[in-house]
């Protein structure tokens, strides 16, 4: 069956695109005409020591891509395809793959490792290829180090591909033994050691049982710690990666080792090369993550039931940990603020310091305070910058010194000769405003006395270098946010116009594309608008025209390069986002809403042009803005539907950018409420697309619950006309309801999702019942009632309010038809009583409604 593929594979990598395309076409045809032959040829090519390494490598890659894909539905197809192949073909391919692990060509070995892992990922869960791990382990005892190295690498990939359940504990033990032996100092070959260390990283998830055994855990920990001292930097780095992973996976087993780990990591942070030092800091960051999670979950209140107790490692290490992190702050790189991708010791240390502050709270203050006081006025910019940064993690804990430092920082922001210091000063001011300013703060840092000065300084700083200006915008963002619930009179009102003008000026700076300055300026403008009061409503209304003009200008630009088009697209997003915020603001009160309406036609026209700019997909920001517009215009939105509809369709079909799809689903709801039964002519197509979305494996799961809610919106809008969709929508709801009932063994994330899903299902039922109210067609719903009542039985507290509302809607719409069903259902009564005695006002209100509707349904 096999065929000579070497030449084709080489041609597929040719520089000449004609040759290349032809080769690709040939490969494609071969694959389509004879898949088993194709795969055999590729595996034969990969295993053949006489073939050029380039063709072997590509053969392996194509083989790997025939087994796995990024998209879930494609992946599923490939898995099914492999499983249905002839057993003899498969075993021949697998033999070739294993054979390749002994190749002298490292590229061939490495490729084979990955393909083996992919096959294992498919076959092991099916209880196939049982001899794989055994034969790999026998390789480990072979002499040639390159075979050992390739085998360990394969074991690492394998552990990444399969879930621990599919491997017996006995085999896990053997794998770990082989891996840990490969890491140990007695292994003479560094390549083998490195492969083993990296393999351990992936195998850690399999080692639950071994980490519960004191002796085995001690052994693993000793070998890992030894590897952090290896003369080979890559091995040290990989070993620290293992430590990071152990820190989060086996936090509760760490106590006996934490002291040693502290010494190892602090030595690495102070003395080792940067990649290693970064991992060492990351260890402490991830311990902070763990302890923050634990403390958030239990609120410091530990009982025997707690899954994981908090060992307060950070608190214990604090006296030594904080000075170590403060030292790293002084190791800034000259231009790290201009480099988007920068990540260095000072940044990692600063980030970790922030996490430490969140973990331990006030305890950090006495350790940080002297550092700030000592360094903030030093002539060396590194010291001033580090001291200023040190405020950032916990400004709320440093209140006394912040008050003193505020004036100093306001001066530094415009006067300090070093741009790095100014950048950090602006950022720190933002942090201070975020935490020490606002209606909930007892003694706000911003007072009528200093407000004007602060604004003046920030506006001036917005003319500084892009990175500094961006941070100044950020500080202004939090300054505005603090006045969010200020009432009808805002201290910002006198400066509103000047602030808006300064921000608009920033958006027009030639260098506004750097350091995401333009984005920051628009985002701050949004927050200033959101937090504005009626006093400045007129100015916000004027801003509509300004932003519309800006958006119009982007649409006039002609013949753009692809780079320019991308920038234009981004700018349109910002402008649509800004308009969305303005529309939502003005739409919130009647007088401003009516004043805004004069622009509705023009704005809609601009949004449609924004959509038309992109050929394949619609713009999420424009879609969000249209939702806000539909809410404001109400039934008048009908006139935009003929032009807008096709983009609505495109949005609903956008599986790839699922956020766009999700936003569009929300907009359908907005339009339903705006148009009510006038949406009817579009409903056939909309429902078809929504049903397709629901049954798609490609679409991100987070979009599915909102689609159910959207069913409810449509039903409420079109009433009994929803009749024709019942036969499609109801079974979908029913099967989703059944799925959501099985939550046994689910993790927190899954439980949260299940509740979101239930909420969507319940909102659908509510809308449908309410929509059919008073219709002669209510009897169509009766047959679904038993299932729905049963579904209501299994509710979590989180969705109680929606659920009890559905019970009321069901009783109200079905009336006496539902009376006996409800009366028979003992749990409905318990549920109602539980809701009636709820502390939650909203639950009680819905329960009162249900009580009334039920008593009516029963009495008739």
């Amino acid at each position: 069956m096999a065929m000579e593929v070497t030449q084709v594979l080489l041609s597929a990598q040719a520089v000449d695109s004609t040759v290349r395309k032809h080769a690709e076409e040939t490969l494609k045809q071969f694959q389509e005409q004879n898949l088993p032959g194709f795969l055999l040829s590729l595996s034969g090519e990969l295993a053949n020591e006489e073939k050029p390494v380039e063709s072997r490598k590509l053969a392996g890659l194509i083989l790997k891509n025939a087994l796995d894909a990024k998209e879930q539905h494609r992946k599923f197809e490939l898995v099914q395809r492999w499983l249905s192949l002839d057993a003899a073909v498969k075993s021949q391919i697998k033999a070739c793959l294993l054979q390749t692990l002994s190749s002298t060509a490292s590229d061939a070995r490495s490729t084979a490792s990955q393909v083996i892992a992919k096959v294992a990922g498919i076959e092991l869960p099916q209880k196939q290829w049982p001899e794989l791990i055994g034969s790999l382990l026998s390789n480990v005892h072979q002499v040639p180090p390159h075979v050992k190295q390739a085998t360990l690498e394969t074991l690492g990939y394998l552990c990444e591909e399969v879930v621990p359940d599919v491997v017996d504990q006995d085999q896990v033990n053997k794998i770990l033994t082989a891996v840990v032996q490969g890491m140990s100092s007695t292994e003479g070959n560094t390549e083998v050691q490195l492969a083993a260390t990296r393999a351990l990283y992936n195998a850690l998830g399999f080692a639950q049982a071994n980490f519960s055994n004191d002796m085995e855990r001690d052994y693993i920990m000793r070998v890992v710690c030894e590897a952090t001292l290896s003369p080979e930097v890559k091995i040290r780095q990989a070993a620290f990666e293992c430590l990071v992973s152990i820190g989060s996976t086996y936090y509760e087993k760490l106590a006996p080792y934490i002291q040693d780990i502290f010494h190892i990591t602090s030595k690495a942070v102070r003395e080792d090369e940067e990649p290693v030092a970064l991992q060492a800091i990351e260890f402490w960051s991830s311990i902070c993550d763990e302890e923050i999670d634990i403390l958030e979950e239990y609120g410091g209140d530990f009982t025997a039931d707690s899954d994981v107790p908090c060992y307060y490692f950070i608190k214990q290490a604090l006296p030594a940990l904080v000075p170590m992190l403060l030292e790293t702050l002084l190791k800034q790189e000259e231009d790290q603020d201009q480099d988007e991708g920068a990540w260095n010791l000072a940044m990692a240390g600063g980030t970790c310091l922030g996490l430490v502050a969140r973990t331990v709270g006030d305890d950090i203050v006495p350790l940080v305070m002297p550092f700030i006081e000592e360094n903030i006025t030093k002539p060396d910019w590194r010291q001033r910058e580090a001291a200023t940064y040190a405020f950032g993690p916990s400004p709320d804990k440093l209140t006394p010194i912040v008050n003193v430092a505020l004036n100093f920082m306001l001066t530094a922001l415009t006067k300090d000769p070093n741009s790095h210091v100014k950048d950090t000063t602006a950022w720190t001011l933002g942090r201070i405003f975020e935490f020490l300013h606002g209606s909930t703060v007892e003694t706000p840092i911003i007072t009528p006395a200093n407000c004007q000065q602060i604004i003046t300084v920030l506006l001036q700083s917005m003319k500084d270098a892009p990175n500094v200006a961006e941070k100044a915008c950020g500080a202004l963002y939090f300054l505005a946010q603090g006045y969010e619930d200020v009432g009808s009179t805002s201290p910002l009102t006198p400066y509103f116009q000047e602030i808006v003008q300064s921000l608009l000026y920033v958006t027009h700076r030639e260098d506004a594309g750097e350091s995401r300055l333009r984005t920051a300026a628009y985002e701050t403008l949004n927050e200033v608008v959101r937090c504005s009061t009626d006093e400045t409503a007129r100015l916000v209304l004027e801003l509509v025209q300004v932003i519309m003009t800006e958006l119009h200008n982007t649409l006039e630009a002609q013949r753009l390069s692809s780079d320019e088009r991308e920038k234009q697209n981004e700018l349109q997003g910002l402008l649509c986002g800004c308009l969305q915020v303005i529309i939502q603001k003005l739409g919130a009160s009647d007088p401003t809403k009516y004043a805004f309406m004069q622009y509705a036609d023009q704005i809609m026209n601009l949004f449609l042009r924004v959509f038309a700019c992109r050929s394949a997909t619609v713009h999420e920001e424009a879609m969000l803005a249209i939702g806000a517009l539909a809410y404001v215009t109400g039934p008048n939105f009908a006139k935009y539907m003929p032009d807008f509809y096709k983009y609505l369709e495109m949005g609903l079909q956008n599986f790839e950018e699922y956020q766009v799809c999700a936003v569009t689903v929300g907009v359908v709801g907005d339009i339903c409420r705006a148009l009510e039964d006038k949406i009817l002519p579009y409903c056939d197509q909309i429902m078809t697309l929504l049903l397709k979305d629901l049954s798609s494996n490609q679409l991100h799961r987070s979009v599915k619950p909102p689609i159910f809610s959207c069913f409810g919106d449509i039903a409420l809008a079109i009433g009994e006309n929803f009749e024709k969709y019942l036969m499609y929508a109801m079974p979908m709801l029913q099967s989703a309801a059944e799925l959501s009932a099985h939550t046994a063994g689910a993790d927190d994330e899954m439980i949260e999702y299940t509740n979101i899903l239930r909420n969507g299902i319940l909102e659908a039922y509510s809308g449908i019942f309410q929509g059919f109210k008073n219709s002669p067609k209510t009897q169509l719903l009766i047959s679904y009632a038993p299932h729905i009542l049963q579904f209501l039985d299994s509710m979590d507290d989180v969705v109680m309010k929606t659920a009890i509302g559905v019970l009321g809607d069901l009783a109200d719409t079905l009336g006496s038809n539902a009376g006996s069903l409800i009366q028979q259902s003992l749990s409905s009564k318990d549920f109602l009583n539980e809701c009636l005695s709820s502390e939650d006002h909203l639950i009680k209100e819905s329960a009162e409604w249900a009580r009334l509707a039920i008593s009516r349904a029963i009495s008739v």
Partner: protein
Amino acid sequence: MGEKPVTSGLSCSFMGVSWTGFLIYRRSDWGLTGSSTGIDNFKQDKVMAPHDLRRPFKRAAISDQQRRRELSLQRQAQNRRDAQHQARCLAQTILSLQNDTAEPHPEFEIAAQAEEHAQDFDVRQAARLKGAEARRWFAKQLMLPEWMIDVPDRLNTDWYVCARPAGKRCFVVSSNGQRLVGYAMAPDQTYYVIDMVCWGGMSLYECTAEFRFFWVNSKLVETGASNDPSTYHRYRFKTVVIYNCDPGGLKAAYTEPVPYVKDGLLFYNKHAHYQSGNTPLVLVWKDENCSQYVLDTDGKGQIPDQQQVVLELLDDGRLATSDDPPVIFGCLDKDFIQKTGLQASTLLRFAINEGGLCFADGKLEKADLQYLGKPNRARAFADSYSKVMFQYTVRHSPLRIEHLFASVNSLSEEENTCDTDMVG
């Protein structure tokens, strides 16, 4: 093995849609030069490389775009809740009013507690929510004035008069049980309240108009409902000045300026209880001096040459007014009904032809009607007999203000004489 499930492995998610791995690898290009079609897919690959550990630095925890999305979702969720809440409020009012007479089922009897926050809505919103049924039901709650064709007896002693506000008649229900009757003025979000049937859980149905009017005036001021609208109450409620229908009161109601657009005069019998549906104990009257809309207009806002009436088609083909018992204006013949496919209990619009209305012994005997079609969908009821008659007399021999003054004056005199007699 440990008791705790492994949290770091792959976790399978709902419907097999998404798998979340906790390992993140860098993708690297495997050196294939750019190509199209199938091979493109081959380029995706990973190598065993150190793991990216960059964390956000000097960045806000949440982007403004994410904030926009979330605020948008919040608004949508709030709008959805509002829509559903309104639908329920409407139904709840209907149910609780129906339950005023029905015994609540013992098994589900649990003391209802009054909600503190007021959520007001009116018939217009109700009608937007749920079709003709609800509109009809609500309209039925209203006490509907008959049109004044004749001057009632004892007008100056037993009746009140007020200038009737132009605007839509509404039945305002707040979720804490207040039920008011009034006229809505859309432009300034003001309700001019005339009557009240329920307050603070107390039914005023059985109270006389005299008491109800006193109550309206004192309660609205007490609650601050007459203050300017705010976030907490979207509408302003104002009372209408009500006069005793003596010569002075009638003159004031007829001529004094009012803050609203005047549309005729309303007369209330002081002793009448609140009663839903048409009642001769509340009367409406108008002329060109106190109303812009004396003659009915058609759908286009024009006054048609011939008077138009809306009547309900009964099962047997007869055409009835909305009165109880109905007044019959004529009968459609079976062929016509069959040909046009008209169904019983639909409302139909007719013009009154030259033949006009003929009376015998004060009762309608014959009407010369011409079928025009169906009325506007918003119509809930057929015209009342008094309405048809009022429009008919306006076109032929109107009841003038002078007649009313004359009646009030003469009645005053009579009364005075009476008083004198008694004293004497």
